[in-house]
């Protein structure tokens, strides 16, 4: 499926899709959206790329190893943020009151943005990996 129109339009669109996805992830705690929605949007840009080119090209942009790392890191960040609570002497996954910050700014709400980013990473890599692997199965 090597269509020039498709590839050019995809190339034009992908940066904007990714930027929008990042915006949704990083503003998860102050506006609609969050890690799940944002991660899925970023993932959709990679899926668009793979659809316009092919899976092999997609795997070049989003290598399996990177996916594996993002996948595990997303979960590990979540656990580590939770363990910070235990280290501070309160309960697992407790928010950090000193980091609540100015309401409405990006650096506020304690652990929420951190967890949002972790989830965004995880959702993005999961969806891309699932899609690429199933698509690869289909190809040969």
């Amino acid at each position: 499926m090597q269509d020039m129109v498709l590839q050019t339009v995809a190339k034009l669109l992908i940066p904007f899709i990714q930027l929008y996805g990042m915006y949704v992830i990083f503003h998860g705690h102050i506006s609609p959206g969050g890690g799940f929605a944002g991660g899925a949007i970023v993932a959709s840009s990679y899926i668009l790329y793979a659809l316009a080119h092919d899976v092999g090209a997609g795997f070049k942009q989003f290598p399996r190893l990177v996916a594996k790392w993002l996948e595990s890191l997303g979960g590990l960040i979540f656990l580590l943020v939770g363990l910070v609570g235990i280290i501070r002497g309160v309960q697992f996954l407790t928010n950090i009151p000193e980091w609540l910050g100015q309401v409405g700014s990006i650096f506020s709400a304690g652990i929420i943005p951190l967890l949002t980013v972790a989830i965004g990473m995880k959702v993005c890599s999961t969806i891309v990996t699932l899609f690429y692997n199933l698509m690869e199965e289909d190809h040969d």
Partner: protein
Amino acid sequence: MRAALTTVVLVLIGLILLFMVAEMPTFGEMGPAYNEVAHHYTQCAVDETGATNVISAIILDWRAYDTLGEATVLFAGIAAVLAILAAHGQRKKGR
């Protein structure tokens, strides 16, 4: 035969559920579900978590443990898919 049986069973289940819907709290009203918990979530989100998006505040602060499980479901999904793809290799159909 099996399809007919399933349909009959489902119609029965549907009737029970229909009666239940008729007796349920009305849609759009502040029913019993909108109790002090929901009020607490909407009123104390900014004070307790600092987030203005109440949904984010719920899933990542009040109920973060559920979201850890949710992230794990994603991980489990990918581990399961990659495991079967690895386990069953690239064999041709038939064997």
